């Protein structure tokens, strides 16, 4: 553990601020002095409701937006400095947008996935290998490479879009709401896939989501944003211990957390720092022992 902590962060955000439409009547401060450091191999979830600044933040991570103030350091080097290779950074920090399936544009799935690696200037042999590898990583059959993206289901298209990012073999994977619009089974599959990439390939993952519940299930650290600032950060159990603060800030907490909060409001001494049914069962069994004094 100590060794991991001593290692320099792979990505560091220092005092980052961003103002949209500066100097116009629509001026809006979307990020306000945000600092965050990410270690190699971490799985972080950034949570917050619309307008909290989370999308603005991740668009700085690979240089799609330039900071109004502050820095983004990748391997200790400011990605916006004159000497930095911003284009190269974009291959190494892969960003999957919301609803990425709308961005497939090539005639075949294989060509679409090959687009990133081809832009990196890789040889044909390496590109072919990477396309095959990316398809395997997202759990799609190799035969799909010959198909048109239009022949695929929505869930398959989203996997193809993810494969297109993975084919660049990024060190950090940034995912903006990767399960939006999927049904419960589709959400589960997508999370299994992302967790698998993190566990097996050691990819550093930064996940952006509205859902506290999903975040807590997959990430080892949560970063909760509100009004352009980091409002809470810590391990899921630490963050959920402040469930009432989360609810007040407009985030939806899981139903079990709400149930335990309601019991607490009624004067029952139950620990509310939980977010799964299983954890709630444990807390309630412990509470019952205490209430009945045995």
């Amino acid at each position, binding site marked *: 553990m100590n060794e991991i902590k001593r290692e320099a962060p792979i990505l560091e955000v220092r005092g980052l601020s961003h103002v949209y439409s500066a100097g116009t009547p629509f001026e809006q401060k979307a990020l306000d002095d945000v600092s965050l450091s990410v270690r190699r191999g971490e799985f972080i979830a950034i949570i917050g*409701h*619309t307008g909290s600044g989370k999308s603005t933040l991740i668009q700085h991570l690979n240089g799609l937006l330039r900071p109004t103030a502050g820095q983004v350091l990748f391997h200790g080097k400011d990605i916006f400095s004159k000497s930095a290779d911003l284009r190269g950074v974009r291959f190494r920090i892969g960003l999957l947008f919301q*609803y990425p399936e709308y961005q497939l544009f090539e005639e075949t799935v294989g060509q679409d996935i090959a687009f990133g690696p081809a832009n990196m200037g890789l040889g044909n042999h390496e590109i072919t290998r990477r396309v095959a590898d990316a398809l395997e990583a997202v759990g799609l059959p190799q035969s799909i490479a010959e198909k*048109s993206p*239009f*022949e695929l*289901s*929505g*869930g398959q298209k989203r996997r193809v879009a993810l494969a297109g990012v993975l084919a660049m073999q990024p060190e950090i994977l940034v995912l903006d709401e990767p399960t*939006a*619009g*999927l*049904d*419960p*089974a*589709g959400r589960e599959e997508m999370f299994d896939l992302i967790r698998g990439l993190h566990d097996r390939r050691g990819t550093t993952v930064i996940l952006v989501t*509205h859902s506290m519940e999903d975040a807590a299930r997959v990430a080892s650290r949560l970063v909760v944003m509100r009004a352009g600032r980091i409002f809470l950060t810590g391990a899921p159990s630490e963050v959920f211990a402040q469930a009432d603060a989360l609810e007040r800030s*407009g*985030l*939806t907490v*899981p*139903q*079990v957390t*709400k*149930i335990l909060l*309601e*019991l607490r409001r*009624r004067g*029952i001494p*139950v620990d509310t720092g939980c977010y799964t*049914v*299983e954890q*709630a*069962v444990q807390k*309630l*069994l412990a*509470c*019952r022992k205490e*209430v*009945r004094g045995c």
Partner: protein
Amino acid sequence: MSEMIQAENLTFRYTDFSHTTHLALDGVNLTIPYGQFAAILGRNGSGKSTFAKNCNAIALPSGGRVLVDGIDTMQPDRIWDIRRACSMVFQNPDNQIVATVVEEDVAFGLENMGVPPKEIRRRVNEALRMVGMYEYCMHAPHLLSGGQKQRIAIAGVLAMEPKCIVLDEPTAMLDPRGRADVMHVLHRLHEEKGITIVLITHHMDEAVQAQRVAVLEAGHLILDGTPREIFVQTAKLHSLGLTAPQSVQLLEALNARAQAGLETDALTVEECADRLEAWLKGGRA
């Protein structure tokens, strides 16, 4: 007396890219009476959206029939009567907005119907008030949030004074606040205007708020009942790719683990807390 929507032995067939024929709906019998708030659930590919499209003649039956407000959807000359009675709202708000000013967008359908300008003004204002977007009437739709855009889309169909609104996953692309706002509007339309609501959704917490829940699986109607009847069937739901509310799962788990003997059909936080409070304070087992 006719029903709002009456699907009788409804079958829908389509052919894909590789010329394989699929049955998206296979003999569905489903009747939705006037004034009901019904939710339709089912995993992707279960036939939910196809059913929705059959409710206002965007898709026509391959077999069986659909009566909307008593009109058979196979009558091409009645298609506008059908669509006036039963309007649709889709998942992606960006695909449904046509004008550059909110009030013009809401007026679009009315202008096409040839409604007199004075009446258009009245209906647009009322529709925007109903969805809580009146103060945005002169705004540009593309600068609104997803939830606001979806409420504009609802105002657009509301202005046509339909008896029924079918919504195909209207909240799937929205954040929690946008979802809550849209659900609030749907309840308001149902309660204040008596409009029949058919809500297709993946969100169980929305289905819990309906009067009735129908579940489709592989083109068949497989469960149909009140939310309380449907959502206690945790194992069955799981096998259908759906989940029961955590309140039900929690009570079931306590029964299994501690023989708590709790009734499991609590769908809301308050109901569940009531039962847990009684159990925690209750007599010694």
